[in-house]
């Protein structure tokens, strides 16, 4: 359940004031009207608010800053004061309506850079389950234009059926064919490119470091098949999830908005919505948590290096070590039950019954911890393992270059979506 929808919480410091710019005249009028018709005497508080809205240009467009926190803290310090200033029901409703208005304004800001992704053909969906999940829907999916020259970021989930042909509809209503470039399977994001464009609208982005747990977050996607995107509101639940790759939100995320943006109340992009599950790297993993209040988005505001790699067509794969292990019954570390052949672990000379004590100096005592640590890396990264050798009984430092899972016998790797012609 998307439980914590009590969004009018003080924690939401970024209930934004930039939208008041448009709204202030009308809202002032409406507030006055509602007070006139409904309440009789206006409270001094309302006069003050109306005064503030009408007369202060400095309010408009001001950024979040310590001042806002001070204001909030002040309110906390003087709880008695609010009781004297209790708003009428109508005023409370007005305040609530303002948040709805803010959501619409924020959505409007990013809508021009949303694209609708259409795919043609692909692995037949008849089998029902693909990549361990229920099959993808028949509908279109969402992407975000991230550069004026036509690079589009979206989620790998949207191509789970490996369509040989992909087109996108940009916000100007034009349909263009798109090329699938690189993909990052550790983040479930990928890049599309459309050609012969130069002035595509791109969203303003906000870095994860500026985002705060508890602030508003809204997911947007076109997957329900309307020309207008669907919104879902929530908060940022946590940062630095899944090996530091994702921020977590309780806004509803689902195939309707995977590949679409998670935005803040000013319409700035916090990240790309993706299905994720810290327990599994499978392409569809995480979809089982759709609309559950547990969702993840990948921040890309300062991911220039990553984006360059994707532009060059690189495929970034999850790190795979290649051991089957269990907690060491005799003490610290993980007892390696089996070293999988043709993996990073076998290349580095790990042996059955060795005990893995540390990865890059971090102690590992259970598989979950090992997975958490490995989640921080990708295939090709090197880590240092501290291993207690079963043969010699000595502690060794072993350099390991993390790899990919070995392919089953007789199977060839398919990096590219299969081409029909």
């Amino acid at each position, binding site marked *: 359940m998307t439980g914590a929808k009590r969004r009018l919480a003080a924690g939401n410091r970024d209930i934004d004031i930039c939208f008041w710019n448009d709204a202030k005249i009308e809202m002032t009028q409406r507030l006055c009207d509602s007070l006139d018709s409904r309440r009789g005497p206006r409270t001094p508080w309302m006069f003050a608010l109306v005064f503030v809205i009408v007369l202060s240009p400095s309010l408009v467009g001001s950024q979040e800053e310590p001042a806002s926190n001070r*204001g909030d803290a002040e309110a906390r310090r003087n709880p008695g004061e609010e009781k004297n200033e209790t708003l009428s029901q109508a005023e409370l409703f007005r305040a609530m309506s303002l948040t709805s208005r803010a959501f619409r304004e924020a959505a409007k800001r990013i809508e021009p850079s949303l694209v609708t992704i259409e795919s043609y053909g692909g692995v037949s969906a008849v089998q029902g389950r693909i990549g361990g999940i229920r099959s993808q829907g028949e509908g279109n999916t969402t992407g975000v234009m991230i550069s004026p020259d036509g690079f589009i970021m979206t989620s790998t989930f949207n191509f789970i059926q490996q369509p040989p042909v992909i087109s996108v509809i940009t916000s100007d209503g034009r349909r263009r064919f798109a090329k699938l470039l690189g993909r990052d399977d550790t983040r479930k994001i990928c890049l599309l490119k459309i050609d012969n464009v130069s002035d595509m609208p791109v969203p303003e982005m906000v870095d994860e470091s500026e985002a705060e747990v508890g602030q508003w977050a809204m997911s947007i996607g076109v997957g329900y098949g309307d020309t207008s995107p669907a919104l879902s509101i929530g908060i940022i639940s946590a940062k630095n999830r899944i090996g530091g790759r994702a921020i977590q939100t309780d806004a509803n995320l689902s195939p309707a908005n995977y590949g679409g943006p998670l935005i803040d109340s000013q319409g700035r992009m916090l990240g790309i919505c993706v299905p994720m599950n810290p327990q599994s790297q499978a392409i569809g993993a995480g979809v089982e948590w759709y609309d559950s209040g547990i969702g993840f988005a990948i921040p890309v505001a300062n991911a220039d290096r990553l984006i360059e790699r994707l532009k060059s067509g690189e495929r970034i794969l999850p790190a795979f070590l290649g051991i089957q292990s269990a907690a060491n019954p005799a003490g610290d570390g993980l007892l390696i039950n089996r070293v999988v052949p043709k993996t990073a672990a076998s290349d580095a000379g790990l042996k059955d019954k060795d005990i893995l004590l540390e990865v890059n100096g971090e102690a590992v005592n259970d598989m979950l911890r090992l997975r958490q640590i490995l989640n921080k890396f990708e295939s090709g990264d090197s880590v240092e393992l501290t291993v207690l050798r079963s043969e010699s009984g000595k502690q060794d430092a072993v350099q390991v270059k993390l790899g990919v899972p070995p392919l089953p016998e007789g199977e060839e790797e398919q990096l590219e979506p299969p081409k029909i012609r």
Partner: protein
Amino acid sequence: MKQPELSLIYRTLWVIVFAWSSTACTSNAHSQDPGPNSFIQDVIDAAQPKMVKVYGAGAGRVEGFATGILVSDDGKILTSQGVFLDGRQVKVVLADGTQYQATILKRDRVSQVSLLKIQAETPDYFELLSEPVGEKGDWVVALCNSFKVADKDEPVSATLGIISLRTTMEARLTKRDVAYQGELVLIDAITSNPGAAGGAVLTADGQLVGIVGKIINSSETNTRLNYAVPNSVLARFLQGKPDPIVASQPVEVVQQADLGVVLFQFGGRSNPAYVDRVVRGSPAAEAKLKTDDMIVSIDGNKIGSVRDYARVLETLRPDEEVLMIVKRGVEMVRIRITPRAKK
């Protein structure tokens, strides 16, 4: 200047939170003046007497219970369609815990709602406006008895969310049911749970947006939808007017149309609609369709696969020109094509 202004705004929010939390425990704290524009707690308080719990027959794993709303002072109740209506009797429990046997006045296969009646006076009921209520982004409260958590006189559960989208969409019901193709109000409060169907979806000032629809899977996303059947559809149903969406659907059997295109077939996969061969003298030949063209859309319908093509072809009528978009190399080509009657 800046700081006092900001503090005022944040104080507003703080007051909201204060009001919210204070009324969460005592339901009548703000009862002195509910007014038409009352706040969430009062919206819920005012709506609870208009909510009913509906119990009927279950079938296998399909639940035999639902939620309903009172829509008249003489015991008329709107609820969803479902197997709970198919048993020998349907039981309705009012908010005060009193029980009644209900009779089914009418059911609508398309909007998937039904109208029940109990022999009781019900002074508290929802007025159905015929104009749509609520726009995208507006806060809504869904009141429903999901998982029949509430029993007897216990109030049904309230969940908060926003309107995600007002749309008409293709969606498919879980097995054995007809497709609902009418207008939907998608919300982001989770209502796709057993027993929630028939619950009320209200705006923050207490107007009825619609009732929670039965559980359906969207064919677009292959996910369960959280949605309301809008008040305007309900009002039409109550007045006995046919849904215009249904009424406008053609009923006569038309002759099958043909374009003279043979598509490329390739086993085991869902293929894009690549043209393998163009029949000589056919509409496709006249429109200069070529081998290796990929059909992107016909008459505004996206053709994602060979299967889509077959489905859309069935909707075409002979001698009615349509716009076809094809991919030729990397170009998008627009073609006007007039189907012929299939021989």
